[in-house]
């Protein structure tokens, strides 16, 4: 097959809307992977990859579908996105599947998406909620926590994760004193903290986003003196949280997907100061872009139908482990007919119908820094 000299990847995420502050680093991360590949000049005998950004508004199905159609019309070879599970589902069902287009979402975690008959076109680099619930329970149990108050951001991510934490923790003999949602981007969280504090518990677990309502809840809880330590699932782990909250956060702990931390450290090195690599889902975005390009290299084609089946192959063992910054090496190995196991920044490991089953780092906040205390 004759290769076009140009490969186009759509980056379809919510540049405006509720998670707008997360999406800029996400896009930058994806574009960094693309740049890395372009610089190497190794992809498909020197094809040039361009990224096309498009907005989903995070919560605007109509806009997202329109923009997806636009990407298709522009001739993209794959779509990185969407971000929020709602728009992702809409784009998947109405644009990607009919057009036979592959999507790799860095951030849609809803289990509901697994049920869509996706014709093997949908993948995600964000780990599943169910697994994280188990990990968190282990950590809590190890630390001797018997009862928790649990609040989650009221969307499919938060709810799914909180469900998983709750059922695992209760199965392990713990007690969830209260299970309450908070809405992101609202003006005031006094009511939530009041209710949570009244219910009590050894610890407050905040299954939210660190620069959204999650931070607001923690701040309000600290200020009111309701809790001093917090349980922090993946969405709450990031440099910004200790920075926003200050020293009061010391002693709080949690977990985030990541293998040995090696990947993320490498990504950080790579990025320099260009963007915040700890911003949620930006490692996943880097990985999504890399997976596309490796699969294309492996299939020696930019046709989704051809490279789609290769994605699981390049993502999983066996093969040489590839980290951020190693993309050129990976491309070379594939070209030479070898096999790679892409680990990337977020410990990519795809299971089942293309979902991530990463391992986790246990984090504790010490002296205003997230420190990895062990791997799980």
């Amino acid at each position: 097959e004759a290769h076009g000299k140009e490969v186009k990847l759509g980056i379809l995420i919510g540049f405006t809307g509720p998670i707008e502050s997360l999406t800029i680093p996400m896009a930058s991360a994806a574009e960094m992977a693309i740049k890395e590949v372009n610089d190497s000049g190794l992809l498909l005998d020197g094809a040039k990859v361009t990224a096309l950004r498009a907005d989903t508004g995070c919560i605007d199905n109509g806009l997202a579908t329109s923009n997806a159609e636009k990407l298709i019309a522009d001739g993209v070879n794959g779509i990185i996105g969407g971000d929020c599970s709602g728009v992702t589902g809409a784009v998947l069902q109405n644009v990607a599947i009919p057009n036979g287009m592959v999507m790799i979402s860095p951030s849609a975690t809803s289990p509901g998406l697994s049920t869509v008959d996706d014709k093997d076109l949908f993948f995600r680099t964000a780990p599943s909620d169910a697994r994280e619930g188990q990990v968190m329970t282990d950590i809590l149990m190890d630390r001797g926590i018997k009862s928790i108050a649990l609040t989650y951001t009221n969307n499919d991510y938060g709810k799914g994760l909180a469900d998983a934490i709750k059922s695992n923790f209760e199965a392990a003999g713990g007690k969830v004193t209260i299970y309450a949602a908070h809405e992101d981007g609202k003006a005031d969280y006094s009511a939530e903290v009041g209710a949570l504090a009244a219910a009590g518990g050894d610890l407050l677990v905040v299954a939210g986003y660190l620069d959204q309502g999650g931070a607001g809840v923690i701040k309000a809880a600290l200020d009111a003196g309701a809790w001093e330590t917090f349980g922090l699932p993946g969405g709450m782990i990031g440099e910004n949280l200790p920075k926003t909250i200050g020293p009061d956060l010391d002693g709080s702990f949690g977990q985030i997907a990541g293998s040995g931390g090696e990947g993320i450290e490498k990504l950080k090195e790579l990025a320099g100061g260009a963007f915040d690599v700890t911003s949620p889902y930006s490692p996943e975005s880097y990985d999504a872009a890399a997976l596309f390009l490796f699969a294309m290299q492996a299939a020696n084609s930019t046709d989704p139908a051809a490279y789609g089946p290769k994605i699981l192959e390049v993502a999983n063992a066996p093969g040489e482990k590839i980290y951020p910054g190693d993309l050129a090496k990976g491309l070379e190995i594939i070209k030479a007919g070898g096999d790679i196991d892409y680990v990337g920044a977020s410990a990519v490991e795809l299971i089942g119908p293309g979902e991530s089953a990463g391992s986790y780092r246990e984090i504790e906040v010490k002296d205003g820094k997230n420190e990895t205390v062990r791997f799980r």
Partner: protein
Amino acid sequence: MNDTIRNVGLFVIMAGLIALVGVQQGLNSALVILNMGLISAIMAIGVNLQWGYAGLFNVGIMGFVALGGLAAVLVGMPPVKEAWSAGGLGILAGLALGAATIIGAVLVMKRMEKGLKRSLIVTVVLVAGFFIFRAVLDPAVEAVEAINPALQGNLGGINPGGENYRDYGLIMVLAWLFGGVLAAGAAWLIGKTALGLRSDYLAIATLGIAEIIIAVLKNEDWLSRGVKNVVGIPRPVPYEIDLQADPGFVASAASWGFDPVEGSTVYVKLLYFFMFLVVLLILLWMAQMALKSPWGRMVRAIRDNEVAAEAMGKDVTRRHLQIFVLGSAICGLAGAMMTTVDSQLTPGTYQPLRFTFLIWVMVIVGGSGNNFGAVLGGFLIWYLWVQVEPWGIWLMQLVTSGMPEGYWLKTHLMGSAAHMRLFTMGLVLLLVLRFSPRGLIPEK
């Protein structure tokens, strides 16, 4: 005559803009815009009926649209048998008790003399009813939500197809009607309490009810899975991949010069287009007929001067209720249609900016008090909403073109280019209103 030419011209320009999208970005893009434009136009007609003709201020459009979405789930999805046997009856009983409580309280209000005793009894009825309601409902809800929570956990709908529910796509037309009915029911309840009081009250009532509806949709998992979304809602048109696998279709697509993928995607969208167009035309006809008749005259009189209309024997409150219910039903209908196109219900998407204010912009820019204006506004604003993004990026490129690569300001500006969408939207809005302050097709 002159006006007619101008108005037709405006629609032609609009068609031209969409056609241009078709040329530049492909038929599919144009059709997606067109279809959502049709749905927007329908919503705009509903709102125009309420505001443009009756002066009723509805800031809860979002809520009625969401109810339409709920209807799509309740009609389109198959029932979850286990859930029904686990707690279906309990939930129904709970809801019945809740309704009985409210009806009881209202009856007491009506039957008894005003006074402390009445207030006390009403309070007792409400409080006791609330606790009984919760006592019956809560366990049933828990049981239902425990059934396969990752994928179901709700009661489902009435689609008779069971496993093969997707084959019963035409049931969605019923769902649209049910969306209208559901929204009408909610509007009736609001209208019964809010209309006849000062109109601020209607505004806050609709604003509130919309928030309440969304809160219920987000938090009552047994109903429609809450924030976990319902995906895979059936559709009244064939699936593209089925068409692609159908040799007959592929052949006829080829005869038109389409490859199977493009042929199937365009075909499906065209089917939707015709369905929506029929709905729009029917509604438009009904609205125009009504408004050009004595009924419309009465409505305008009421809008102009309620006190005088009342003195001239018109039952203002009843008329308001009628219009409010009708307008809301239209919004509900459009909401169900939109959920059908999306194939999924996502309660998180219901945001006032998108579903209330944007519709208002459509009505005002189009020209409130004129149905054709509302329709045009629906198309135009939706077109802008999805199309101005590239303009923003283009504008930023223009601004930063003089700056060296990698310069911080350039990175910063290009990084915020997406926000140019809202910015440009605002600019266009201001420009349209500047040169046509009463809307593009003003009320005569």
